C-alpha cells in the first residue's frame, strides 16, 4: 500500500518536473534565434559567441519572470531575484545558478497547485519579456514576435496541465 502511494507521489512530482522541463525546452528553443544578438547589457559591445549555458540561464530567467506574472504566484526567492535582475546590474546573469532557477520554478509549480493563467496579465507579461530581451540585445523588430511566442507557449503548457 505504502509503495503504491509513494509511486503516485513520484508520478505527480515527475509530471511537474517534466512540465518545468517542457516549458524550459520551449523557451530555450525560441531564444536560440536570439543567441547571435545576445549581450550582457546595453553597454556591452563585445561580439562574443554565446555559450549554451548562458542561453539556458536566460531562458530560466525568462520563465522565472513570466510565470509569476501570468499566474499571480511567486516565491520570495523569485521575487527578490527578479527585482535585482530588473534593476539591471551589469553581468548579473553570470551570477545566477541554473540549479537555483530550476528549483524555484519547480517549487512554485508544485507548491501552488492548481496554477492558472490570468488572461488579463498577458500584456504585462509581454512587456516584462520585451524589457528583458531588449536589455540583452534582441532587435526591436523581433522582440514583440519572440515575446508573444514565449507567452503563448508557456500559457499553452500550463493550460494543458490545468485540463
Amino acid at each position: 500500500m505504502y509503495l503504491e502511494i509513494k509511486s503516485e507521489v513520484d508520478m505527480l512530482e515527475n509530471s511537474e518536473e517534466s512540465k518545468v522541463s517542457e516549458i524550459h525546452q520551449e523557451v530555450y528553443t525560441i531564444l536560440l534565434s536570439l543567441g547571435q544578438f545576445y549581450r550582457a547589457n546595453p553597454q556591452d559591445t563585445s561580439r562574443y559567441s554565446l555559450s549554451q549555458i548562458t542561453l539556458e540561464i536566460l531562458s530560466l530567467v525568462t520563465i522565472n519572470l513570466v510565470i509569476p506574472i501570468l499566474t499571480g504566484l511567486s516565491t520570495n526567492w523569485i521575487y527578490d531575484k527578479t527585482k535585482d535582475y530588473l534593476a539591471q546590474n551589469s553581468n548579473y546573469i553570470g551570477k545566477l545558478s541554473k540549479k537555483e532557477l530550476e528549483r524555484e520554478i519547480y517549487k512554485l509549480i508544485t507548491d501552488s497547485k492548481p496554477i492558472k493563467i490570468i488572461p488579463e496579465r498577458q500584456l504585462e507579461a509581454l512587456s516584462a519579456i520585451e524589457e528583458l530581451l531588449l536589455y540583452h540585445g534582441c532587435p526591436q523588430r523581433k522582440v514583440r514576435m519572440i515575446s508573444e511566442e514565449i507567452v503563448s507557449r508557456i500559457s499553452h503548457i500550463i493550460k494543458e496541465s490545468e485540463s
Partner: protein
Amino acid sequence: MMHIDLSSKDSLIRQFIRRSLLGMKVFNSGLYDFPCHQTYLKYQNLHLVNYEEESQLETLDSGLREAPIIFTEGFRLREKIDQFFYYKPANGYSVTPAEHDLSWKMFNSLHYQKSSHGNYAKDLIARAIIDCRRQYGNDSAIEFVRSLWSHHWIFGRFTAANLLTYAWGVDSEEDWGKLRSDKDFIFEQFDEIESALNYIKQTCISLDQWLWGLYLIGPDAHFIYKLSRGSDDDEIEKVNRILDEIGADTVDVYFRCERSMLNDPYLIDFYIKGMRKDRDIKDIDIEKLKITLEFESRYRTHLPQYWVDKALKFLRSENYDGLSELNCFNTTLLDSIICTSMGLYGLG
C-alpha cells in the same frame, strides 16, 4: 527577392565543378601568367587529386543555355555582336554550351591581367552590370551578378559583394552614403538573407547542398555586412554583428569539411565526440548531444537540420556505421567553393 533553389542544385553543382575543371585546363595550359595566386593554385592541385566523378566532365546540362555570358574581345563570335561585352537576361544571346565555355575560358584569363582598377575581368563585369542595370533595371542586374557568381565567373565573395553595389545602383560615394542611411533597405535585405539561410538549414538534404547554399548567399551577405558596418545605429549594428558571424561560420564550415578530407571522421569527431576524441561513441548521452547539436544548428551556421536529425537517428538506433554518411560530400565541389569564395588573393 533572393531565390535559393536547392532542387536545381545538382545541375548547377555539376556545371560548377565542370567549370573548375575547365578553368584548371586553361590555367594549366601555360598560356597565361598568374602571379601571386598561391592559394588558387593550391586548390587547383586539389581538384586534380580529388576529382572522382569524371563522367561529370562530359555532362552538358540544358540549364547552361540560361547561363550568363560576357563576350570579350577576341572571342570568335565577336562578329555577331557590336559590343565589347554583352548580356541580355530576358532574351539571351543563344550560344551552344561549347561556345559558352570558350567564352568563359577566354574571359577567365582576364582575371589574371591587371588593369588600373584591379583586373580586367572585374572591370568588364562591372561594365556589364552597369549596362544591364541601365537597360533592364536593378532587379535584372542583381540577378545577373548572382548568376555570374553561381556560374563561376567571379572570384572572391568580397569582389562579388563589391560588384553587387553596381547592380544596386551605386555609382558614387554619395549613392553609397544614401544606401547606408536607408535603414529599411538594410533590414529588408537582412531579412531576406536570414530567410534564405533558414530555408537552406531546414531543407537541404546533403552536405553538398549545404555547402552550395552557403556559397550562394555569400555575396549578398557580405554586401549587407559592408553596408551596415560602422553604423551609429544600434539596430543596424545588430544586423552587422549577425552577418559577421554568418560569414565567419561559413568559412568555418568550409574548413571543417576540408579538414575532414584529411581526417575521415573529422566532422563526426568534432560535433559528436566533441573535445574527447578518445570517447567511445556508445557512451554518448544522446539527449545532451541533441541540445548541443540543435544549438550548433539553430543558433550558429554550422550544421543543417538534416545532419542533426540523421546523427541522432543513427545514434538512437545504434547504427554507428551509418554515421559515416554524415561525412560524405563532393570534395571537388568543396575545393571549387573554397577557391571561388576566397578569390584570387585568398582573401575573399
